[in-house]
């Protein structure tokens, strides 16, 4: 029987919660197409994650808890997904457009000569196929795209769809055998360094971002530093000891403008904008960021934008719902204190 497949992304045996957004999108399609939602869970702890997927709306699940799948590798993951699609011809395969989801779904789509709607913001059933809204031209324009075929692959932008409230239930689970044995897999993982303080900007509900203005830190750099080196120290200190505490109180992540990254104030993983991450948090607090059009491309779909900048003429204020003209090094600590008081933290 045909179905809507939803790939559940996991890391070390735990589901990536944004995958529940994909289950919700699958549920929505399943309703209009009268099909069940099948969760696909590969890797360790798959059986438990499958039941969790049931709580979030999946009707049944296919799992493969094999050692070859314990860490994500495209080769064995894509081979298994392709095999399942070829055998069962699901009407659609959905997944979150994370780094892994993007390459996994596109690879299996190519293997099965299926069309793909990548990184969609909106999705609906349309005639024999699916219709999606996508961001194109660096997010400056939207496109409507239709896809039809035996199976359509869809990757979903994080936070574009809302996960359901979980309601625990037991769902039937089928186990699948891996498509490749370890001997058939040429890619080998030699090591993994977990990122210190995960940056997961795409999934963050709140982002506190810093720009060039981070260098105006009144804190004194260690003796011996001057000029650019002193500016870099001041900005790094500001990101770590002024912005990070605010992000912590809000349960959010720290972002940055390209100017801040290029100046060496913070690693590239934090960059928001055209050559960084595209984000859409509920709350985006831009601190000392002027708001170049390239930065706007990465954050303009944020629900509420707060701009804090010394220069009242900065373009960032044109994007903002709330503007605070002033010194971020005075305002942010006051804001952090106020939030601790009001949120009882």
């Amino acid at each position, binding site marked *: 029987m045909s179905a809507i497949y939803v790939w559940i992304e996991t890391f070390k045996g735990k589901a990536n919660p944004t995958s529940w957004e994909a289950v919700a999108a699958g549920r929505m399609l399943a309703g209009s197409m009268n099909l069940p939602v099948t969760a696909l869970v590969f890797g360790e702890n798959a059986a438990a994650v499958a039941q969790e997927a049931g709580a979030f709306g999946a009707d049944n699940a296919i799992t493969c808890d094999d050692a070859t799948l314990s860490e*994500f*590798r*495209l*080769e064995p993951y*894509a081979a298994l997904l392709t095999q399942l699609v070829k055998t069962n011809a699901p009407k659609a395969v959905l997944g979150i457009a994370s780094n892994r989801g*993007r*390459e996994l*779904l*596109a*690879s299996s*789509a*190519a293997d099965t000569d299926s*069309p*793909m*709607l*990548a*990184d969609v913001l909106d999705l609906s059933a349309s005639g024999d196929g699916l*219709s999606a809204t996508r*961001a194109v*031209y*660096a997010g400056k*324009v*939207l*496109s*409507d795209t*239709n*896809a*039809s075929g035996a199976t359509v692959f869809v*990757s979903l932008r994080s936070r574009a769809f809302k996960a359901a409230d979980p309601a625990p239930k037991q769902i039937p689970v089928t186990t699948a055998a891996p498509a490749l044995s370890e001997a058939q897999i*040429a*890619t080998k993982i*030699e*090591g993994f*360094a977990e*990122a210190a303080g995960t940056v997961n900007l795409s*999934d963050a509900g*709140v982002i506190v971002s810093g720009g060039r203005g981070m260098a105006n830190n009144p804190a004194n750099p260690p003796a011996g530093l001057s000029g650019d080196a002193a500016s870099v120290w001041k900005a790094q200190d500001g990101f770590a000891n002024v912005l990070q505490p605010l992000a912590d109180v809000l349960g959010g992540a720290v972002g940055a403008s390209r100017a801040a990254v290029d100046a060496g104030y913070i690693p590239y*993983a934090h*960059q928001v904008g055209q*050559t*960084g991450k595209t984000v859409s948090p*509920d*709350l985006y607090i831009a601190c000392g960021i002027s708001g*170049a059009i*390239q930065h706007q491309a990465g954050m303009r779909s944020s629900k509420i934008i707060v701009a804090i900048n010394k220069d009242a003429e900065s373009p960032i204020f*044109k*994007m903002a*719902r*709330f503007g*605070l*003209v*002033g010194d971020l090094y*005075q*305002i942010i600590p*006051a*804001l952090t*204190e*106020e*939030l601790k008081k009001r*949120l009882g933290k």
Partner: protein
Amino acid sequence: MRIAVFTRSTPDTAAKVEVDASGKVTWGDAATVVNPWDEYALEEAIVQAKNAGGKAAVIAIGAPMHDEALKHSLAMGVDEAYRVWDDALEGADGLAYATTAAAAVKQLGDVELVLFGRDSVDVGTDQHIYATARKLGWTMLAYVSKIVSIDFAAKTIKVEKILEQGKQVITAPLPAVVSVLKDINEPRYPSFIGIRKAQKAAIPVWSLGDLSVTLPASAARVTAFKNLPPRDTRFELISGTPQEQAAQLVDKLLEEKVL
């Protein structure tokens, strides 16, 4: 031995891009630039080809406007440039692009490594990159922040790949398709001599017939482009001492239910 790298021309990053009354995407008289992510792929192709004593070849699939990106690539120091265009490619989807790209790589013949930038900002996707690797039947290594080592004789490559949770170190066989991130290198600026040479270069254009490729019908089609919905233009300036600003902002954010 060649290293192939794909690029395209995209509107200047500062250009205002919109949909005009006829439904076409326009960026007025703004210039086009190399797709911003591709600068890193081009730089890596130049460096890796030089290290290996091979050649770097750049390919664009698209209309004549993409010659601009190819000329920029030549000016940076890429050895050869090719463009693939055919009316049948108009409106092609990721699968059709990948089928064409794989055929172009095969046409070059002695390619061991294909490089792409992280994604193409105009089409807003990276799916064609992974699809190209599958159509070639080659290793795909995405989100690479560093090529640790590459051995064309032993046909192996070792890279650092970025996931949301951290960094994987992966070894894999060549030939491979690699998509690169911004932190892999510092792209060079074209030299004056490079720019003059590039302006004079004749860029061969291959048709689908030249590549002996038959395209699959594009099953994904753009039906319309739309301008972004207007942003909420409400703006409130919050003034006072820093403490007053902070207190007022928290009030407002609680009202907006974003805390």
